């Protein structure tokens, strides 16, 4: 039988160049992508962020001890968990020796809608690559668990095993962020470099990311127009206290269920997220004046901000 023909198709070199660029980016960036053995079945992806420091997605690290890491050079080393920040879905691990390069971090300018990106992972021996684009870029946002992420970066990429904890890289192989499907109902998001750096700094320093805490459960309520008018309130929504942690900062300050918070430290609050944004770790120990409405009358209550207790490690699913 006749063999296959050897004539080349007529195409310009653009696709070949793209192919070479992408494969080169995967090869370069892939050197710092590691496999983390900290769960059953498939290993999780992580990235050699700074010398000896590995960053991963919190939800993929399912145990705190007996963790090993496989590097791009084929070696496997023991790792210790430095800390976790469930609010940003990041975890930091430390290794004594990692003879692989650290990630080349990009500045934030490459994060723009339509940018061609690669999501890398290492859910085993070999590096994996997925092609996509950045589909949405927004400003600072707050996660379900109260973490602050500098920019909202949503990706149009397929999510395969090893996606979470792997780097998002540009066509030059520079790292734009860390991918996770664990922050927004399985959607492919990236945590930008600046946020990762901030969380890594805190975890390396203290082993955790501290957050302020009121110990109050609140729900937004619309205030009667007559009350808004009578008290000259800046807006017509407040936060009704629906639960108070016994012995928590709010309870200790005398806040009762049914009180309606309208301002904290002179800032009006009409959404629980606004309260969270006022409770950074730097507020712990400070006494903040809280304006409440109780029995139709305004009152001021001083609450000493506590520290949020460490969250239990949620065994959320994700890849």
């Amino acid at each position: 039988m006749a063999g296959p023909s050897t004539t080349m198709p007529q195409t310009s070199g653009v696709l070949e160049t793209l192919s070479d660029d992408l494969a080169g980016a995967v090869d370069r960036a892939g050197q710092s992508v590691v496999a983390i053995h900290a769960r059953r079945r498939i290993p999780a992806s992580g990235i050699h962020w700074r010398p000896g420091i590995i960053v991963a997605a919190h939800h993929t690290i399912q145990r705190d001890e007996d963790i090993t890491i496989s590097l791009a050079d084929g070696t496997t080393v023991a790792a210790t968990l430095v800390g976790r920040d469930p609010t940003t879905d990041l975890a930091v691990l430390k290794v004594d020796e990692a003879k692989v390069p650290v990630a080349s971090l990009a500045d934030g300018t490459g994060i723009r809608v339509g940018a061609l990106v690669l999501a890398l992972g290492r859910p085993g021996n070999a590096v994996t690559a997925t092609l996509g684009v950045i589909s949405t870029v927004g400003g600072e946002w707050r996660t379900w668990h109260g973490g602050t992420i500098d920019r909202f970066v949503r990706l149009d990429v397929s999510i395969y095993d090893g996606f979470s904890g792997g780097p998002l890289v540009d066509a030059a192989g520079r790292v734009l962020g860390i991918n996770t499907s664990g922050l927004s109902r399985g959607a492919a998001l990236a945590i930008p470099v600046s946020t990762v750096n901030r969380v890594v700094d805190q975890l390396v320093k203290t082993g955790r990311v501290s957050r302020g805490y009121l110990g109050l459960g609140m729900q937004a309520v619309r205030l009667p127009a007559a009350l808004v008018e009578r008290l000259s309130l800046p807006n017509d929504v407040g936060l009704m206290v629906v639960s108070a942690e016994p012995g928590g900062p709010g309870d200790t300050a005398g806040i009762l269920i049914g009180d309606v918070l309208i301002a904290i430290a002179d800032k009006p609050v009409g959404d629980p997220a606004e309260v969270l944004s006022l409770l950074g770790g730097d507020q712990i120990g400070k006494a903040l004046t809280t304006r409440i409405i109780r029995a139709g009358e305004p009152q001021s209550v001083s609450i000493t901000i506590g520290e949020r207790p460490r969250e239990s490690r949620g065994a959320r699913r994700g890849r």
Partner: protein
Amino acid sequence: MIDASVEPLGIALAELAATLRESVVEVRTRGAGAGSGIIWSASGLIVTNAHVARTEHATVVLCDGRAFDGVVTAHDSRRDLATIAIDPGAATLRAATIGHPTDLRAGDVVVALGHPWGVTGAIALGIVHVVDTRRGAPRWIRADIRLAPGNSGGPLADARGRVVGVNTLIAGGLGVAVPTTTVSRFLDDVEARRAGSGSRAA
């Protein structure tokens, strides 16, 4: 760098698709739906998946719509490969250019051509997802590419349009292709068996 090349990229992709399409056929069998096939030689040898060519006879339709009666001449369900012979008569067949699957790197651009959901001659763009680092020729090519039923038996090609695999299945969202190195071994085995048994040429 990438931004500046987006328009030429589209043109290059369209050219590649047009060239590749001439070497892709639709394979229709009674009972089973339609799959795809690759023109392996201008004399009328078509390579497809075993699960596409389950019957003794198949209708092979070229990209220009001309249809030929084909005979399934070899069938290997373990490799999921089959061959179909057609007599092109006066028609000129354009055989696919075969590439080197062992040269593929993770991130390399790949395109698939086939008939997903019966749509004729559709192209899909993706990249090689993972290259197994273990020794020996890989059994599969795994690509981050969107395939559908009907792509089966069609080509997965590299950025130069050289066929590197036969699209065979979708696993966990990944396109999985049998490397053309495996196809060559399959064809060698078929040839050897034919020579050994002294059967007449099909």
